[in-house]
């Protein structure tokens, strides 16, 4: 009986140490939420940013996508259209693709997601972060109040210097730029996401085939 008592005390000890380790780890998990009003001068200077660009400046067609990382339609567009667009038309030099932030007010974590991507861009990892955010939208979008911790995990996954990322997020360094992008979209008439601007035409979600037809209509020689 004494042996069993020692055994149960040992188990209780493991339970206490394990629970304590979980609690401490949970407490240490940084909560980084850029809050508060955005200074006007940050928005004004943010207007200089033209978006995240992939492709050649010499490409005959420019496609601008206004998207929201938390929008399911944008995730579908990324999965079904944008990846093909990049693999075929951007790589071939036919299209210059520009992604612009358009975080909708109805999406509670969109601003943080766009800011995380902007901080990743600072370290040259916007596109891996962009892909990670869309690929894992189902994980972070419904999470209750912990999305910023998940984004921090993504930052590490895509190879960011996490200390620099933390500083960028804590400072809210790109809030003005994101707001400027949003306001720029509004001025162009963007009212929903995803919105694709191809040449001087504006579209909602397009399949790759639909998009390619539009691109083909704008170039002299049809694309592959």
């Amino acid at each position: 009986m004494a042996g069993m008592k020692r055994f149960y005390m040992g188990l209780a000890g493991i339970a206490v140490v394990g629970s304590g380790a979980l609690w401490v780890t949970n407490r240490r998990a940084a909560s980084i939420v850029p809050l508060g009003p955005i200074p006007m001068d940050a928005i004004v200077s943010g207007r200089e940013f033209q978006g995240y660009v992939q492709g050649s400046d010499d490409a005959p067609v420019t496609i601008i996508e206004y998207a929201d990382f938390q929008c399911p339609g944008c995730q579908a567009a990324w999965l079904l259209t944008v990846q093909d667009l990049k693999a075929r038309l951007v790589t071939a030099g036919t299209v210059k693709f520009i992604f612009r932030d358009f975080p909708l007010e109805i999406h509670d974590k969109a601003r943080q997601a766009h800011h995380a991507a902007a901080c990743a861009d600072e370290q040259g990892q916007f596109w891996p972060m962009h892909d990670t955010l869309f690929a894992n939208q189902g994980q972070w979008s419904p999470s209750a109040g912990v999305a910023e911790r998940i984004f921090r995990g993504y930052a590490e996954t895509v190879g960011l210097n996490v200390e620099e990322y933390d500083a960028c997020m804590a400072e809210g360094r790109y809030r003005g730029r994101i707001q400027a992008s949003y306001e720029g979209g509004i001025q162009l008439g963007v009212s929903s996401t995803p919105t694709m601007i191809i040449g001087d035409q504006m579209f909602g979600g397009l399949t790759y085939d639909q998009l390619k037809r539009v691109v083909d209509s704008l170039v002299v020689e049809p694309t592959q």
Partner: protein
Amino acid sequence: MIAATLSLIGVFVSVYLAMWKLGWMGIMACGTGSCQSVQLSPYAYVFGIPVAFLGVFGYLATLVLSLASLQPKFITDRRVTLGLIVVSGIGVAFTAYLSYLEAFVINAWCRWCLFSAAIIVGVFVSSLFGLRNQPNELSVGSPA
């Protein structure tokens, strides 16, 4: 006793991974491994359920069974130990499948997964020894 101790440790490992999955743990403590690559891969889910959650239930089951097998009323009843062998055996098979995915599909190793693999193998082996050493009703009831 070994199976119960290992199961309890397994519970905490899988609870940690489950809490990380929920976004409650910040950056995963992983050293030089590729835990997040593994945990963020599509293979970290089975029928839409995160593997870490399955681990919590699995280890809780082996913990309950191993503690039950130590109770006086089950000391000669092999069914509980057999149940422990079945549950931990399923765990070992599932872990082997996950390790195969890490090695040949994901091409990344998660230290927590390897630690969990060692734990479930330990539970399984100790339960086999437990069954071998367990007195049955005839031997307990027969005269010396």
